[in-house]
């Protein structure tokens, strides 16, 4: 009843967004930016400012000059606000440039050697300077995944447990544990490799994926542990109190209330750890070395990995092998990105999933 009369009464009133930027303003802003960019280019031709960095400086100065001109009629505060906005926007873009530059370089140099077989074949029957349609880095991908999996299986429980100890138990050793974790973060990766070389590789008498995975675990633990601690600190004490008030013991509360609340954060801790070690080369040269074929057995001698594959391909030095190395780098980047996407999916709690589901359902309703 009420809804019917309401729809009748408010007929003809459309929802508006007066705060939204219209298309014409956006077009105007874009064309002005392009014009400024061109002017900045002209400036680099006639002044000592040169190349991309010189152009960036000129571009920034022109923008500031323009914004100062625009706001000259307004007060000092408004002008300062406008100038700072330009400066901070440019700094944000500036921080974005190296990241984009790395990504584009790897993409441009690496795409040539990609063909489906690159992911499934190894280098036993081909040499680094062969055409791009034979051989591949499948063995290196498998080796890297196995070693990172070993490192994750070892460090994720350890990291989360030490995080729980530091934030939930707060035992007498809190200071010592935090101190050790922090100093471990400063261990050079080659030292971690040497440590595993003397404790595992030498006694076993051979290089192995297990040794490589453990060396990576040494480097991964501080990252996972620190991140897990920071994430667990974010859980409000209210929730712990609620758990205790329901008659739960500390461990039960930690595992059933605290951990699920920050599940996605803990998975991110694991991913940060993986991203930290997946490109490590030095410890692997001392523990798993490199090989040309698929090795599925983690204790079956030398194993290839993406970093050592990239390293050896670069060392070979021919045009084709260098391209293969770039492709390896591209695969490495894609793997880390893939892990992040996967982690986001896994990290959603049942409650969050219910929320996104209802949102999706609403969208579908609107469409139909």
């Amino acid at each position, binding site marked *: 009843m009420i809804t019917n009369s309401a729809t009748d009464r408010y007929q003809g009133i459309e929802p508006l967004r007066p705060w939204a930027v219209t298309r014409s303003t956006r077009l105007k802003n874009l064309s002005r930016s392009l014009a400024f960019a061109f002017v900045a280019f002209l400036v680099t031709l006639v002044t000592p400012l040169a190349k991309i960095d010189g152009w960036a400086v000129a571009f920034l100065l022109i923008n500031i000059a323009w914004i100062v001109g625009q706001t000259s009629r307004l007060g000092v505060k408004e002008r300062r606000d406008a100038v700072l906005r330009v400066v901070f926007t440019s700094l944000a873009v500036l921080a974005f440039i190296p990241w984009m530059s790395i990504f584009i370089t790897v993409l441009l140099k690496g795409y040539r050697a990609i063909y489906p077989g690159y992911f499934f074949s190894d280098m036993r029957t081909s040499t680094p300077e062969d055409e791009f349609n034979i051989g591949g880095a499948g063995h290196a991908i498998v080796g890297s995944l196995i070693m990172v999996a070993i490192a994750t299986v070892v460090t994720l429980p350890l990291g989360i447990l030490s995080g729980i100890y530091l934030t939930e138990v707060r035992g007498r050793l809190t200071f010592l544990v935090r101190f050790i974790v922090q100093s471990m973060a400063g261990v050079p990766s080659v030292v971690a490799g040497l440590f595993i070389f003397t404790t595992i590789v030498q006694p076993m008498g051979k290089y192995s994926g297990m040794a490589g995975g453990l060396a990576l675990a040494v480097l991964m633990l501080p990252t996972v542990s620190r991140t897990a601690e920071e994430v667990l600190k974010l859980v*409000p004490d*209210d*929730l712990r*109190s*609620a*758990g*205790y*008030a*329901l*008659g*739960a*013991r500390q461990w*039960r*509360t930690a595992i*059933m*209330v605290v951990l*699920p*609340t920050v*599940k996605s954060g803990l998975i991110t801790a694991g991913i940060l750890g993986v991203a930290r070690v997946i490109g490590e080369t030095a410890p692997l040269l001392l523990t798993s070395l490199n090989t040309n074929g698929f090795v599925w057995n983690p204790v079956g001698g030398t194993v290839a990995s993406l970093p050592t594959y990239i390293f050896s391909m670069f060392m070979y030095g021919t045009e084709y092998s260098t391209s293969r190395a770039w492709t390896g780098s591209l695969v490495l980047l894609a793997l880390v990105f893939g892990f992040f996407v996967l982690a986001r999916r896994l990290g959603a*709690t*049942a*409650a*969050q999933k*219910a*929320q996104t589901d*209802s949102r999706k359902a609403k969208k579908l309703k609107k469409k139909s």
Partner: protein
Amino acid sequence: MTQQNVDSTKTVPQQFDASPDFRGLETRGAHAWFGTHHALADVSLRFPEQTVTGLIGPSGCGKSTFIRLLNRMHEFIPSAAMAGEILLNGSDIYAPSEDPASIRLKVGMVFQKPNPFPAMTIRENVLAGIKLAHLKRDNHDDIVEQCLSRAGLWKEVKDRLGASGGSLSGGQQQRLCIARSLAVEPQVLLMDEPCSALDPGSTLRIEETIKELAEKITVVIVTHNMQQASRVSDFCAFFLTDGGPGYLVEADATRKIFTNPTDSRTADYVQGKFG
């Protein structure tokens, strides 16, 4: 320093049921400290079964500290200390043989700020206590419906039990927290200003809930709202502080506290003359 304060002949309040086989919650000469700060002194009170007791008094007079003593939440503060006896159906909950977790199972608590578990759905929130305390229950669906109904929330959420507990409004979240604490079937429910952040409608619902709960269990509620105290409670206890530790001024039937209190300070407080 613990025992000298405990003089049961002097401290058992006469205005409540004083029979020796008293059932319910009782404190005898309870004190509380935070480090060297003496926060609460010599509180002796009885909370009989199936009654609602309102704790009133100005901020900082130790009401919250007092109810946190009653289910052993006080000891989570690292520098906390206490003295005196707190008896549940005659047995001391601070006896060395008592397990704090099982005490908290019997003496539940609802906090000032709604704190549903954000990672759990509404249904999971209600059942959280059962899982956390390893209780054996088969009829989970019945428990969810029963507890949410008793907390006055069932009608509003029955079609979205799978939604996140955090997606509810503040008042609904608080009622969810009440439902959650009911699911473990406590003998006593402590409520620390449960309505302080709620709108009048939600407050009314929660007050109705409290009255219904009192048909089965003991309820102790801290409140700053005098109307609320007079509406929901059977007994009232008035706390005060003179700069030192908080202490109990008087405790009596609610009607007497509000119409004809023994202490003039109580009269001034309930009539809004200070505090």
